[in-house]
């Protein structure tokens, strides 16, 4: 299998941001994060300043990966939904497509039922966008149709400057 980088353009990012923003409002939750299964944050909505988003993305991906491992042990393909109940705040984690993880943090201002309902709708919308991104990553693109990557011009000097050499 060749390595497939995940590339996201502005339009798709804007659409993702709009969907999770709407999810955050409609579900009355505190924060919504959209995370890549490799542990990178893709987008966020709500009161994100109160949370270390980088750590959350990494731990969520690890959590999902470990749960995937458990699922396979018992003959399941995956557990698409995880719910962690806290004293004040709760965490709802769901898988979107092959690559995405949707994380919703909510408190007593919302409910699990409402979150599940809204997440179901948002997931359908997010899936369409993810499928577009994944299809592009997997497609055999003719050289003439490739977009102009800024990284094709990386030089040794660029890399040296990055490391302060």
């Amino acid at each position, binding site marked *: 299998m060749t390595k497939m*980088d995940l590339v996201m353009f*502005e339009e*798709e990012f804007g659409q993702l941001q709009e969907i999770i923003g709407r999810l955050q409002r409609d579900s009355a939750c505190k924060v919504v994060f959209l995370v890549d299964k*490799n542990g990178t944050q893709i987008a966020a909505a709500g009161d994100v300043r109160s949370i270390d988003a*980088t*750590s959350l993305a990494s*731990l969520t991906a690890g959590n999902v990966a470990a749960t995937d491992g458990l699922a396979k042990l018992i003959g399941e393909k995956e557990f698409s939904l995880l719910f962690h109940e806290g004293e004040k705040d709760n965490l709802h984690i769901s898988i979107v497509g092959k690559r995405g993880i949707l994380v919703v943090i909510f408190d007593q201002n919302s409910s699990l039922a409402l979150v599940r309902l809204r997440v179901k709708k948002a997931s359908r919308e997010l899936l369409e966008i993810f499928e577009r991104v994944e299809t592009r990553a997997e497609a055999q693109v003719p050289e003439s149709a490739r977009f102009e990557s800024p*990284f094709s011009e*990386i030089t040794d000097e660029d890399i040296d*400057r990055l490391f302060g050499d």
Partner: protein
Amino acid sequence: MTFINYASHEINCKIVYYGPGLCGKTTNLQWIYTQANPMKRGKLVSLATETDRTLFFDFLPLDMGTIKGFKVRFHLYTVPGQVFYDASRKLILRGCDGVIFVADSQRPRLEANIESIANLATNLRDNGFDIRTIPYVLQLNKRDMPTAASQGELEAMLQFRNEPVIEAVASRGLGVLDSLKACARQILMELQKS
């Protein structure tokens, strides 16, 4: 698997530190964490046992600056080295862009190093990668130990594809940044080629 976000002008790459138990993977990350500019690094997340053995992974995000207008972030992970944590090691390798193999230079640990490289090859293959082509650096750690084998002996036993070999004493920071830079450089050159 590099994540390139054209909207936010960010590129995120994942580097995994691999090796047998107690070889110094976590020590590498801890040293980077203490030495890096606090503005350039995030929190060090360590999922460990009560005796400070890595249970699932350590994680440290690092901002490396900008290249061609894109913010370059490296996500550094370590795997648990103890043999029975193989299932976890396989998961942590998901989507990795480069590997730094931390070898324990001590002679009694030679076999453990060899087994760990074989284990890495298997786990990379199960994740769709090839150990012969993925960006890869061999760090010979614990060069200061009295039982350390010679560099030549270690290279003969562990180096297999002309990868960069870097001597290190991670507890004192020697070779830590050189290893990271060598791996990051390979990843960025791969990005250029692709």
